């Protein structure tokens, strides 16, 4: 029992890191643009395949997969903003309209991936698989990479948002678009930047996922579900809140297995969100929007 708890705790830490990263990627986009960017899951899947193809088709070492995933994801994210959301924005489309367009893109995109690669899972070739251990806890090199890279990326993002000139501009746009426009910020450019950052980081997450598990066309759905759940659970206005909520979701999923079968992991996340929103609509550490 003790060994089980230790192992579940370690698994929880790994999952928590991944969900925390997933949370901030969508969070930075949603907090800034208020676009319900549903095709985020497509970005994940495409990045996942980019990572795989670098090793299987281009025969490059898996090290390059990481950069390919990030670059492809960032490009795709920017493309979606520039060619789908921006025209809709110009026309004054409602949030619901933008959401539906995004939903359509995600649906069509995943089906295209299915057409191109079929539903059979693909492996990231060459990633080390030797099992590691600390004391009684076991984990794979992919688990270790996932944990370290996730937190490195979350840390860099938070630092960038807090300290850099662009980071401040992003926060300003997220808090009050009108005021930001009035002080001369180019909103379209900032949206593009945010989509590049959010998508690029989600692409990194896709690489980590593909290294740990496998890639398949719908691989983005579950991470995306966790990312927006983390955003609303933590509170839309607070990006550290999204990471915190991701941690809570990761640990509760893992430790929940002590009492519930694994099939119920979505249920645990949803139950937590449901209860928190009833008690605290603004999220765990979010502020009320006026």
């Amino acid at each position: 029992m003790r060994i089980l708890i230790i192992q579940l705790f370690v698994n929880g830490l790994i999952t928590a890191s991944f969900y925390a990263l997933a949370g901030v990627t969508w969070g930075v986009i949603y907090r800034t643009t208020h676009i319900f960017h549903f095709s985020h899951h497509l970005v994940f899947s495409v990045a996942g395949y980019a990572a795989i193809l670098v090793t299987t088709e281009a025969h490059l070492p898996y090290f390059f997969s990481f950069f390919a995933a990030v670059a492809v994801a960032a490009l795709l994210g920017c493309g979606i903003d520039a060619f789908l959301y921006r025209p809709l924005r110009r026309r004054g489309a409602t949030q619901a309209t933008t959401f539906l367009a995004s939903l359509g893109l995600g649906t069509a995109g995943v089906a295209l991936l299915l057409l191109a690669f079929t539903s059979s899972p693909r492996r990231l070739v060459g990633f080390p698989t030797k099992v590691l251990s600390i004391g009684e806890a076991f984990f794979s090199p992919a688990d270790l990479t996932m944990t370290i890279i996730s937190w490195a990326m979350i840390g860099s993002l938070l630092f960038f948002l807090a300290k850099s000139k662009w980071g401040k501009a992003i926060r300003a746009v997220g808090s009050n678009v009108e005021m930001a426009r009035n002080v001369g910020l180019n909103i379209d450019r900032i949206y593009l930047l945010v989509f590049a950052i959010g998508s690029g980081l989600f692409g990194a997450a896709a690489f980590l996922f593909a290294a740990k598990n496998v890639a398949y066309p719908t691989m983005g759905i579950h991470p995306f579900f966790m990312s927006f759940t983390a955003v609303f659970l933590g509170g839309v206005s607070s990006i550290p809140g999204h990471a915190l909520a991701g941690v809570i979701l990761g640990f509760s999923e893992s430790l929940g297995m002590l009492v519930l079968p694994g099939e119920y992991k979505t249920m645990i996340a949803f139950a937590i969100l449901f209860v928190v929103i009833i008690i605290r609509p603004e999220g765990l550490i979010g502020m009320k929007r006026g």
Partner: protein
Amino acid sequence: MDYIFNILVFILIYAVWVQSLNLIMGYVGVISMGHAIFSGIGAYTAALISVHLGYHFLVGTVAGFLLATVVGALLAIPSLRVRNEYLIVFTVGFQMVAYEFMITARGITEGQGGIPNIPSPQLFGFAFNTPFKFLPLALVTTVICFAIVWRLVNSPFGRVLKAIREDESACRALGKNTLKFKVLVFALGGGIAAIAGSTMAYFITFISPVSFSIEISIFIIVMVVLGGEASFWGPLVGAAILVGLPEVLRFLPGTAGFVDVLREIFYGLILMFMMIFRPQGILPEYAAKTKPLKGFQDLPDEADAFSAAEERNTASAEEKGGSPQALEITGLSKSFGGLQAVKDASLRLASGKITGLIGPNGCGKTTVFNLITGFLPADDGKVYVHGKEITGKAPYKLIDDGLVRSWQDIRIFKDMTVLDNVLVARPRQSGEEILRLFFSPWRVARQERENVRHAFGYLKMVGLTDKAGHLAGSLSTAEQKLAALARLMATECRVLLLDEPTAALDLESVERIIKLIKGIAKQGRKTILLIEHNLDVVRGLVEEAYFMSEGKVLAHGEPSALMADPKLAEVYFGID
């Protein structure tokens, strides 16, 4: 032939399913990502009740309807209370969790394999057990469900739904509990989807989780969008095209899996391209709109608005004890983060007078309005209307206390007719209650005629009777402001808060509105608090004004006296 009837029955079932989502998505503008599950609730409830308990299919259908309605309300209340997009989050989660439940709770749902051998429905000894025999049942179900939706959307209730979709805040300011409307519609939409689900279960006599996956939820959304959101016949068109299409695709070469993938691509592209190029769908909502107006001819001559409007009002004001202060505010404060937007503001408005609220841009005037009307919670301070405290009351409740506000940016409901804009503001409409709508239709109709008569009175007052049937968005800015005034008057409130009623207008229109406001205050015996930038307007209308700067009330008195004060003039005009 059975093949054709089979398709027809499916089109009818899907039409009901799509209509139920259209009610939610089209008419109120909120999105459900879990609409397949509501059908699933109907299907499983019906199947379990009929298979295990052997009950009649009508029992199963009604039980499914009720359960789905309750579940719908439980999802909608906590999420819509916050913001519309929380419902997307909740319904995606609900869809995934409920789907997992269908698959894993084998003890109840029999898992992936589904529930077979559901008895075919029977009525008076007639068994609906072939596609041909089932067709009448499907048709009747469809007609009933469509009739219910028709009644809902073409009624005072539906008028409020449209107003919510157009501008929810403006709708709340007119006294509508928008949350209640949204929750009711979502719950009812879920219930109707459950009817589609149970009908499907009884038709196929077998159900399994696959029919209620997230792909199906998206499929239903695609049908709504294709047919046209908020278009009554759109769901039938959407369902006919998209249920028929796979039957055509069936003749394409390739494996079934390949065709399925093609279909997904196609659905996604429809959704995306419809949103980009034709968001209104195949049958747009106003394809045949600008309805002929009844009631205009029998408008009585004496329907001079000021008197017509006042029938009920005068009595109620006397009843309320006639406190000399129509509106009193003491020590109102509000800060946003570090910024003190309003600080210790106190105002008193004498009954029947127009009082001005002036000051430089950004001094907190509109924030004061938002605090009074409950759109923002005050940090401190109290608000009284006719001596009754209303501090912190929800915006929609203030109509009952006789207080209503206008908006700087007009916020007319642009895609509704001018007449509907005024009608929606009428208080205490029994046609806004679902039960009354269906069980006392004559009373609703009588009241509606009465309201139309009143509405024309108000339109006459502002001189817009000839534009009654036009879409409000097609009016000029000046006309929109007049329509907004008529809408405000239609609430019958005694205290009006006007936020820059003459901003951005030409001189002639300004004159017209000044005259109108004077008339409203005098003949209509209204108390008015007026935010205004144009000092000529202020001088022309107001005997007493409050001067605000940086969130504080600096002075009050006669407007010319205030303006003569060099210190205030400096603050106002920013002269050194």
